[in-house]
C-alpha cells in the first residue's frame, strides 16, 4: 500500500457495537468490529474478505456512516476526503450518501422497487441530490449501460426489474451506484447470488466500469478467488478484527497468517474416483418431468450411481438439477422414463411409495434453516425418524440420538437446543444426522454447502466423506461448484436447461474434449490466481475474433 497523503478514504480504529437480546437473558453489548484501520486511494479497490459474521458488510456500510440493524459506530474515524463523516449531522450525511459514496447490495432483485422502471431508479439519487438534471442523468445512465455491457442500452432503462435477468439487474445496480459520479462505491457481495457463468460477466463489467470511471471501491465478498480478480489490496477479517492486510499479490501468494493460509488453501482435498462403476444402485432411465402447468423441466435424462460412490450433478440455476432430485424422491413424479433403485423400479409418486423405500433414500436441503422445524429441538428433529422408521422410544431413542450427534462431531450438549441456537454449519450437521437416523443407502444432497462459509463447508464435505467411508453411503451431490465436484465425486453429470449434456466418470467428464457448455462452465469458475479474469476475457475475445 503506497502511503500517500491523498487518501480518499481513511478508516482509523473503527469500533462498531450492537445490543443483542438473547432470549431469557438480559440484553448485552456485543462488539461487531474492533480496531479496524485502512486507507484507500482514488481509483483503487480494497477487497474485504471473511466469513459471515466477520463484520465485513458492517465495515463497508460504515463508509456511509450507516449502522444496519441496531449496529452503532462507537469509536474511531471514517475520513472521506479530509472530512470525518461520522461527525457530520443528519443533513451533512445525506449529502454524502448516494452522491459521494454509493452502495451496491448483494441481492439486486430485492433492492430494486418492482413498481418502477429501471432507468428512473438508476438516475433517482443523482437527480434528487441536484447533481445533474434529468436529461444529463439519462445520458450518463445510457453511457454507463454501455460501459457495463448491458443489452440494448437505449431501451434498457424502460424495463421493469422483473423483465431483466439477475446478472443484468446486478449491473443495473452498479450503474445506479456509478451514476452520480461517486468518489467511492461499496460493493456488498455483488456476485454471490449469481451463477458462475453470469458472475464472470458481472465481474468483468464491474472491473471495466471502475477503471473507466476512476472510482475507488470497497469490494466485500467471502470468495477469495473473486476478490483476487478485482481488487488491488485485500483485508482479511475474522470476528470483527483484521487478520491480515496487504496487496493482493502478497495475500494470495505469501499469506503470513494461518487463517489466511486456510482460506487460500481451502478445497485441496481430492478423492480418487472409484474404478468400478458398473453395478448401479440408482439408475435413472430416460426420465422426463413436467410441472402441472405443462412446463417441461427435464428432457430424457439417463444416469446411474453405484453403491458407496458419489455422483455430482453440476449446472447453473434453472438447469433442472434440483428437479432431478425431486423426481428421484417422488415429490415430482416423472412424466416419462423410469427410476430403478437397488434393482427394483421405484414407485413414481411419493404417496404410493412403501415406507421402506422412503427410509432408504434421504434428502439433505441447501438451507438447513428452513429444512428443520424451528419449534423442535435437536432431540425431536433427529429422534423423529428413529421413532418413525424403527419404533425407538425413550432411553433407546435418546441413546441413538446421542450416538448420531457423535457421528456428526457434535457434543451431547446440543441435544436440547433449537435450530435457531445453532450456527449454519451446525444446522447442516443436524440435518445430516436426521438423514443418517433413517439408516439410508442413498442420500441426495441438494447444494448442502453453498450457503456456508468456505471453511465450514469444507468441514461438512469432510464429514460427508467420512460417513461414506464408514457406512458405504451413496450420494447424489447437487452443486454448482466445480471445485467441490473435483474434490468428492466419482462420476459427474453436467446439466443445462433440463438436459443432460455430459455424464461419465469424473476423469472423463472433466477432461477435454468438452462440449460448448461444459467448456464455458469450467472456464467461468474463478481461480485463485491474479490475472485470471483478464486471461479468460482475452481468450474469449480472441475466440470471437477468430470466428
Amino acid at each position, binding site marked *: 500500500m503506497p502511503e500517500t497523503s491523498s487518501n480518499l478514504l481513511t478508516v482509523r480504529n473503527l469500533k462498531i457495537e450492537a445490543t443483542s437480546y438473547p432470549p431469557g437473558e438480559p440484553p448485552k453489548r456485543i462488539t461487531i468490529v474492533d480496531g479496524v484501520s485502512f486507507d484507500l486511494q482514488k481509483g483503487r479497490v480494497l477487497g474485504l474478505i471473511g466469513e459471515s459474521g466477520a463484520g465485513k458488510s458492517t465495515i463497508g456500510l460504515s463508509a456511509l456512516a450507516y449502522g444496519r440493524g441496531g449496529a452503532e459506530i462507537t469509536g474511531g474515524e471514517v475520513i472521506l476526503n479530509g472530512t470525518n463523516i461520522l461527525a457530520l449531522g443528519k443533513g451533512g450525511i445525506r449529502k454524502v450518501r448516494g452522491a459521494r459514496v454509493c452502495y451496491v447490495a448483494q441481492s439486486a432483485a430485492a433492492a430494486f422497487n418492482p413498481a418502477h422502471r429501471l432507468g428512473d431508479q438508476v438516475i433517482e439519487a443523482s437527480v434528487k441530490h441536484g447533481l445533474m438534471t434529468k436529461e444529463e442523468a439519462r445520458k450518463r445512465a445510457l453511457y454507463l449501460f454501455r460501459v457495463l455491457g448491458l443489452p440494448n442500452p437505449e431501451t434498457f432503462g424502460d424495463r421493469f426489474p422483473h423483465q431483466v435477468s439477475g446478472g443484468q439487474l446486478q449491473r443495473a445496480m452498479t450503474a445506479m451506484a456509478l451514476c452520480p459520479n461517486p468518489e467511492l462505491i461499496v460493493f456488498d457481495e455483488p456476485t454471490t447470488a449469481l451463477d458462475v457463468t453470469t458472475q464472470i460477466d458481472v465481474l468483468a463489467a464491474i472491473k471495466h466500469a471502475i477503471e473507466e470511471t476512476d472510482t475507488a471501491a470497497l469490494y466485500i465478498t467471502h470468495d477469495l478467488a473473486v476478490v483476487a480478480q478485482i481488487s488491488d489490496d485485500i483485508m482479511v477479517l475474522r470476528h470483527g478484527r483484521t487478520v491480515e492486510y496487504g496487496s493482493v499479490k502478497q495475500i494470495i501468494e505469501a499469506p503470513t497468517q494461518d487463517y489466511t493460509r486456510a482460506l487460500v488453501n481451502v478445497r485441496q482435498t481430492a478423492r480418487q474416483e472409484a474404478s468400478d462403476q458398473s453395478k448401479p444402485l440408482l439408475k435413472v432411465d430416460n426420465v422426463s418431468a413436467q410441472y402441472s402447468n405443462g412446463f417441461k423441466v427435464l428432457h430424457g435424462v439417463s444416469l446411474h450411481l453405484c453403491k458407496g460412490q458419489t455422483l455430482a450433478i453440476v449446472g447453473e440455476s434453472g438447469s433442472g438439477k434440483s428437479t432431478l432430485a425431486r423426481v428421484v424422491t*417422488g415429490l415430482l413424479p416423472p412424466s416419462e422414463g423410469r427410476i430403478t433403485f437397488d434393482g427394483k423400479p421405484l414407485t413414481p409418486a411419493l404417496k404410493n411409495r412403501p415406507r421402506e423405500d422412503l427410509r432408504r433414500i434421504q434428502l439433505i*436441503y441447501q438451507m438447513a434453516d428452513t429444512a428443520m422445524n424451528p419449534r423442535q429441538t435437536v432431540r425431536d428433529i433427529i429422534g423423529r425418524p428413529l421413532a418413525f422408521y424403527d419404533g425407538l422410544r425413550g432411553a433407546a431413542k435418546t441413546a441413538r440420538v446421542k450416538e448420531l450427534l457423535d457421528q456428526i462431531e457434535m457434543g451431547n450438549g446440543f441435544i436440547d437446543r433449537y435450530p435457531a441456537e445453532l450456527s449454519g454449519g451446525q444446522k447442516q450437521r443436524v440435518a445430516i444426522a436426521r438423514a443418517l437416523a433413517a439408516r439410508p443407502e442413498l442420500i441426495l444432497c441438494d447444494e448442502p454447502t453453498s450457503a456456508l462459509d468456505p471453511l465450514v463447508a469444507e468441514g461438512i464435505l469432510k464429514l460427508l466423506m467420512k460417513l461414506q467411508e464408514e457406512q458405504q453411503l451413496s450420494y447424489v451431490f447437487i452443486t454448482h461448484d466445480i471445485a467441490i465436484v473435483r474434490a468428492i465425486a466419482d462420476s459427474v453429470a453436467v446439466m443445462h436447461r433440463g438436459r443432460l449434456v455430459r455424464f461419465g466418470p469424473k476423469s472423463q467428464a472433466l477432461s477435454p474434449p468438452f462440449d460448448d457448455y461444459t467448456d464455458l462452465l469450467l472456464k467461468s469458475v474463478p481461480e485463485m490466481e491474479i490475472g485470471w479474469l483478464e486471461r479468460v476475457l482475452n481468450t474469449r475475445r480472441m475466440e470471437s475474433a477468430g470466428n
Partner: protein
Amino acid sequence: MRLRDISITAWIGMIGIALALICAVFAPLIAPYGETEVVGGVWQEADAQFFFGLDNLGRDILSRLIYGARTTLFVALAATVISFSLGILLSFIAAVSGGVIDTVFSRFNDLMMSIPTLIFALVVLAVLPQHLVVLILVMAILDSTRVYRLGRAVALDVAVMEFVEAARLRGEGTTWIIFREILPNTLSPLLAEFGLRFAFSILFLSTLSFLGLGIQPPTADWGGMVKENKDGIIFGISAALVPGSAIAALAVCVNLVVDWLLKRTSSLKGGRGDA
C-alpha cells in the same frame, strides 16, 4: 416460566379473567340476592345496599351481573373454542391437502361468508329449537368461517416450507404434519385471533340476546341486561352501562393476556417472530 416474567398488563388481564371466572363458578355464594329476585323499586338508584342499583324490574344489578358472568362466559368460551377447533382443523386439512379438498372447503366457506352473519344466525335460531347447545353451535359454526380464512392463509405459508416437505418425504401422515409441523409454527397469529374472536363472540351473544334470540329471560346474561335496561338511558338511568362496561372490561382483559401470550410464543427461539 417464572412469575416475574409475566408483564403487568398480563397480570391485570389475568386478574380480570379470574374475577369473572370466580363470579361464574361461585355465583350463588357471592351474589347478595337471587338472580330473578325482585328486591325493590324499578331502576332504584345505587346505594349502600344495592351497589349498582336495581334494574327495570327492580332486581339487583350486581347479583344479575354475577350470575350473568356464568352464561356469558360459558357460552362465549364454548363457542370460541369450538369455532377454533373446527376452523383450524378444516383450514389446515385444506392447506395440507390442496387440490379438490381445498377448493371444496374454501368455496363452501366463501358461500357461508357471503351471507351476513347476523341475519344467518337470526334465521337459523328462529327455526331451530331454543336451546343453549344450539345457540353455541350456531355461533361456533358461523365464527369458524373467519377462523378458517386466517388458518388457511397462515398454514399455506408454513405448508410450503422445506421441513414440511421433509416430513412428507419421511412418509408422515396428514395428522402429524398438521399438529406437529404446522400448528406450532402458526400459533402466534392464531392466538391473537383467539383473543379477538372471544371478545367478538361475547358481543355477538349480547347482540343476539338484545334481539331476543340469545339467552332467554329471566336468565341473566350481560348482553340481555343491556337490552332490558336500555330504555332507562333515555331517563338518565345508567343501569344499562354497568353490564356494558363489564363486557368491555372482559374483552380488554382477554386481549391483554393474549397479547402477552403472543409475545411469549413469538419470542421463542426461532419462532416466526412478529411481536
